[in-house]
């Protein structure tokens, strides 16, 4: 067993330990309730914990399978996220071909380029080539009605659902001195600090939150955000042993990723409010859709990727 594999197993068991604690906590609270009484908050909590079990199992299995597993997992997540966003965006019949190309050509190609570790191409393929080519395909059908809106919304969908998500597995292609093949662990680091940061942001926001960041958009508060980012920094420093960043570097990277992620989920909340929906879909029980679950990772991934490239390669 390589040290990377044993570290992944260690992280997986650690996560399972936390999940067992959360599950037992929920079951104890449930057992203490009056028979026949249904507590909706507790039910939501338990459904979420169950979804987390699934997520830890999937991400853990993908990381253990290595590169192929990670690529397949994130390509699938991108596909589900793209479907959720494009279901809600403006489109006309004239866009049918360009949308089909987005799903069946642009998305797979982006992941092929990431798998080939062709950095020069996967960084520009969507923001340059797809963004210029797909509007041409739509324009050729000759329907000018709301053309800019349709094209712009499709591009946003590709940006957040495919480009940003694909930069998570792209972390595997980074060549970091003295880190060797352990760049797989960067994925575990990013996902864990961002997700735990979100969870604690929610917890502290509920407990001590007073000042809303964007009233009318989201219940997120400054107090929750600060505590969430601080918690992410602490968790990041505790996970420093799987990173090439050192303790202080890991704390800073975790804090920045978590902060960008939280602000990103505000952006996603704004899009949802604009479209008048509560969740992106209902594919993950208790959590809404893939975009609801991934929103902070989506925004954190490019920043985390670029900071790692800039400071550590």
């Amino acid at each position, binding site marked *: 067993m390589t040290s990377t594999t044993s570290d992944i197993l260690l992280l997986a068991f650690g996560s399972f330990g936390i999940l067992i604690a959360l599950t037992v906590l929920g079951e104890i609270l449930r057992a203490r309730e009056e028979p026949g009484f249904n507590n909706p908050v507790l039910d939501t909590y338990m459904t979420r914990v169950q979804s987390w079990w699934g997520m830890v199992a999937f991400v853990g299995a993908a990381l253990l399978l290595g590169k192929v597993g990670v690529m397949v997992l994130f390509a699938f997540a991108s596909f589900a996220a793209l*479907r959720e966003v*494009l279901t*809600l965006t*403006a*489109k006309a019949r004239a866009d*049918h071909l360009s949308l089909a190309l987005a*799903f069946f050509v642009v998305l797979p190609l982006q992941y092929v380029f990431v798998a080939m570790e062709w950095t020069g191409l996967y960084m520009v393929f969507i923001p340059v080539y797809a963004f210029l080519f797909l509007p041409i395909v739509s324009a050729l059908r000759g329907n000018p009605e709301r053309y800019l809106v349709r094209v712009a919304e499709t591009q946003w969908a590709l940006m957040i659902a495919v480009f940003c998500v694909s930069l998570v597995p792209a972390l595997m292609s980074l060549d970091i001195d003295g880190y060797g093949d352990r760049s797989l662990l960067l994925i575990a680091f990013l996902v864990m600090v961002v997700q735990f940061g979100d969870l604690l942001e929610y917890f502290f926001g509920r407990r001590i939150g007073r000042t809303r960041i964007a009233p009318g958009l989201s219940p997120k508060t400054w107090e929750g955000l600060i505590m969430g980012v601080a918690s992410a920094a602490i968790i990041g420093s505790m996970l420093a042993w799987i990173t090439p960043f050192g303790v202080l570097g890991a704390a800073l990277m975790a804090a920045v990723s978590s902060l960008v992620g939280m602000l990103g989920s505000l952006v996603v909340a704004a899009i949802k409010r604009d479209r008048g929906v509560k969740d992106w879909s209902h594919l993950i029980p208790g959590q809404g859709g893939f975009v609801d679950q991934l929103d902070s990772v989506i925004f954190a991934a490019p920043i985390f990727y670029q900071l790692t490239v800039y400071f550590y390669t």
Partner: protein
Amino acid sequence: MKFLRQFAARIVGQSIRIFCRAITAVRADWKGIEPVPRQRVYFANHTSNADMPMIWSVLPPALRRTVRPVAAADYWLKNKLRAFVGPEVFNCVLIDRRPEVDDKPLDRIIEALDEGASLIIFPEGNRNMTDDPLLPFKAGLYNMGKARPDVDLVPTWVANLTEIMPKGEVIPLPLICTVTFGEPIHVKDGESKDDFLARASQALLDQRPEVRT
């Protein structure tokens, strides 16, 4: 042989269901009713040939076993494959639309209802190719509602299929399809045909999921 055909019909049915789920992540929104076994007529908007398989796919197994889509014989008996899928997989109530055949469609429908089946029907009669959300309803829904007033008539809206597979396109887009089931309606005492059909049409329109664009 009969057993083999039944087995094949089950396999094909499951494959259709899995296919619908994979392509469109189709999901049911039980807004006005519970997914419990009860005799119902699901009346739905009709924009695509995939409407019926979508509704059929989101019904839980116990409901799916007793539901019979009402469909056109000329479509489902066109070739051997369709003649297998329509009557044996979906267990369709087939209606002969040829003018020279004096086959009373309502009798077939009432017969199926009296056997205890639930039905899926498309009261617009034809696929809606216009930009209007619904075509005017045909009288069939009123007639069956009047003949069997105890049966729940459930408005069932199938969303997004026009975008998933517009007519004339080859590749379906894997967007999310939602099937919304509303509160059941019944023909009221003394209600005229036109009043009822207008009310039924509105009840169906009310199930459209609201998405601002």
